């Protein structure tokens, strides 16, 4: 596992930990938002928090496409699958996310809907080819990383004349989300979000390039470090952010140079732009309606747009009332501050998307972070 295992090395981690301790000013706190669930996952999976000083605090951001999908869009997908006799294809991540009344795709499947997990848009195309007398819908989610494969599939479907394939497009964009978070007024009664810097998206940046975050860094005067998803990447980026904060700088720096360039992947950008265009506004779970924050299928490809091909009923979608996902996605609350966490809401019986996605903050807290005292006690006992 070249270029993977090296970046999980325990010795280097100890060295970086020392460097962070050296650089971090004990008299101040560092609130670092890891925008991406990938970072959240790495922090908990490898125990990065155990290696940084107490005054360096990671704040979980909205960078999990599963978590930010509004319930209504999921309900639409469930409706498509249950009432329109389509084959609904989707990434495994979406299967267990609860919609209104806890109805997930996996439950819809148990009720008889034909829902198939795919690993790639290529698989969705294959299913469409193999089932010419069924409508096959690809339920597309994801940030800029996952968008180009959707565009390629649509272009391929058109080239092949696949008339039974369409896409239910839910792709969203990261820079507007970052801007929205730094810019958003807090809700009544809510503490304002304190963020001193951002661990910036890694794989999104490989497509759109790190320069995409320069306006945000400049306008909101927050340092951004584009950070890889391996635990050493997170630690090195933490160090770089601490240095910028200490020095009062607020620029975009790139830690993840082995993959991310300033301009990103131009070909992927062009393919996505050929098929998809900006939505004027799109709802994000937790953030509300964010302007220019999502993509839809261009008119020229209307025949591949499931929203146009199928009439979906307007619906009253409802999230679980006490679920704090929205506040958690804005970085205002921690999972442990949700009163459903760990009692009513667990990964087996999730009340919100943040508890389902392996990148959701609640799932990460539950799976890796819950009861750290017990962890530490156990370590003590074993020592």
């Amino acid at each position, binding site marked *: *596992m070249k270029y993977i295992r090296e970046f999980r090395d325990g010795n280097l981690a100890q060295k970086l930990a020392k460097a962070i301790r050296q650089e971090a000013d004990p008299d101040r706190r560092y609130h670092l938002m890891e925008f991406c669930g990938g970072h959240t996952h790495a922090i908990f999976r490898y125990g990065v928090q155990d290696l940084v000083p107490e005054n360096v605090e990671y704040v979980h951001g909205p960078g999990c496409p599963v978590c930010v999908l509004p319930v209504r869009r999921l309900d639409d997908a469930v409706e498509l699958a249950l009432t329109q006799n389509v084959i609904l294809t989707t990434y495994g991540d979406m299967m267990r996310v609860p919609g209104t009344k806890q109805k997930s795709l996996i439950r819809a499947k148990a009720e008889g809907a034909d829902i198939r997990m795919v690993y790639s848009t*290529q698989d969705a195309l294959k299913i469409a080819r193999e089932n010419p007398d069924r409508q096959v819908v690809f339920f597309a989610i*994801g940030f800029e*990383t*996952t968008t180009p494969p959707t565009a*390629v599939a649509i272009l391929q479907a058109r080239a092949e004349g696949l008339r039974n394939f369409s896409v239910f497009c839910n792709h969203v964009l990261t820079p507007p989300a970052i801007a929205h978070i730094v810019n958003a007024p807090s809700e009544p009664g809510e503490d304002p979000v304190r963020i001193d810097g951002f661990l910036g998206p890694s*794989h999104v940046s490989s497509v759109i390039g790190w320069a995409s975050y320069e306006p945000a860094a400049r306008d909101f005067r927050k340092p951004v470090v584009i950070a890889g998803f391996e635990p050493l990447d997170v630690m090195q980026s933490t160090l770089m952010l601490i240095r910028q904060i200490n020095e009062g700088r607020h620029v975009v720096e790139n830690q993840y140079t*082995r993959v991310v360039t300033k301009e990103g992947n131009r070909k992927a950008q062009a393919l996505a732009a050929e098929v998809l265009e900006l939505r004027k506004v799109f709802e994000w779970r937790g953030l509300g309606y964010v302007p220019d924050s999502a993509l839809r299928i261009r008119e020229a490809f209307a025949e591949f747009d499931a929203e146009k091909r199928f009439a979906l009923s307007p619906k009253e979608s409802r999230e679980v009332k006490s679920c704090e996902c929205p506040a958690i996605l804005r970085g205002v609350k921690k999972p442990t501050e949700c009163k459903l966490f760990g009692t009513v809401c667990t990964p087996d019986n999730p009340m919100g998307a943040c508890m389902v996605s392996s990148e959701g903050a609640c799932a990460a807290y539950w799976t890796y972070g819950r009861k750290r005292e017990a962890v530490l006690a156990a370590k003590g006992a074993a020592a």
Partner: protein
Amino acid sequence: MCLAIPARVVSIDDDAMATVALEGIRKPVSTALLDEVAVGDYVLVHVGYALHKLSEEEAERTLRLMAEAGVLAEELEEMAGEGAEAGA
């Protein structure tokens, strides 16, 4: 988000496809998103697509920087230790 993993290209196949290897695993991936790709390249694989090439030099450089940061920190710590002793 965006689970993606570097893997080595072991063959260039038909129809904008290539085969990548990760340990003994070989998997076909689409190269539709890359301008050029060659056997031996490391590419970042996401949902069955090669998303970007990985720069091996940059990877080495990053690892070097990490090690250096550590060394620097150790030196600083030693110095701090001396300072503390001196101050005691």
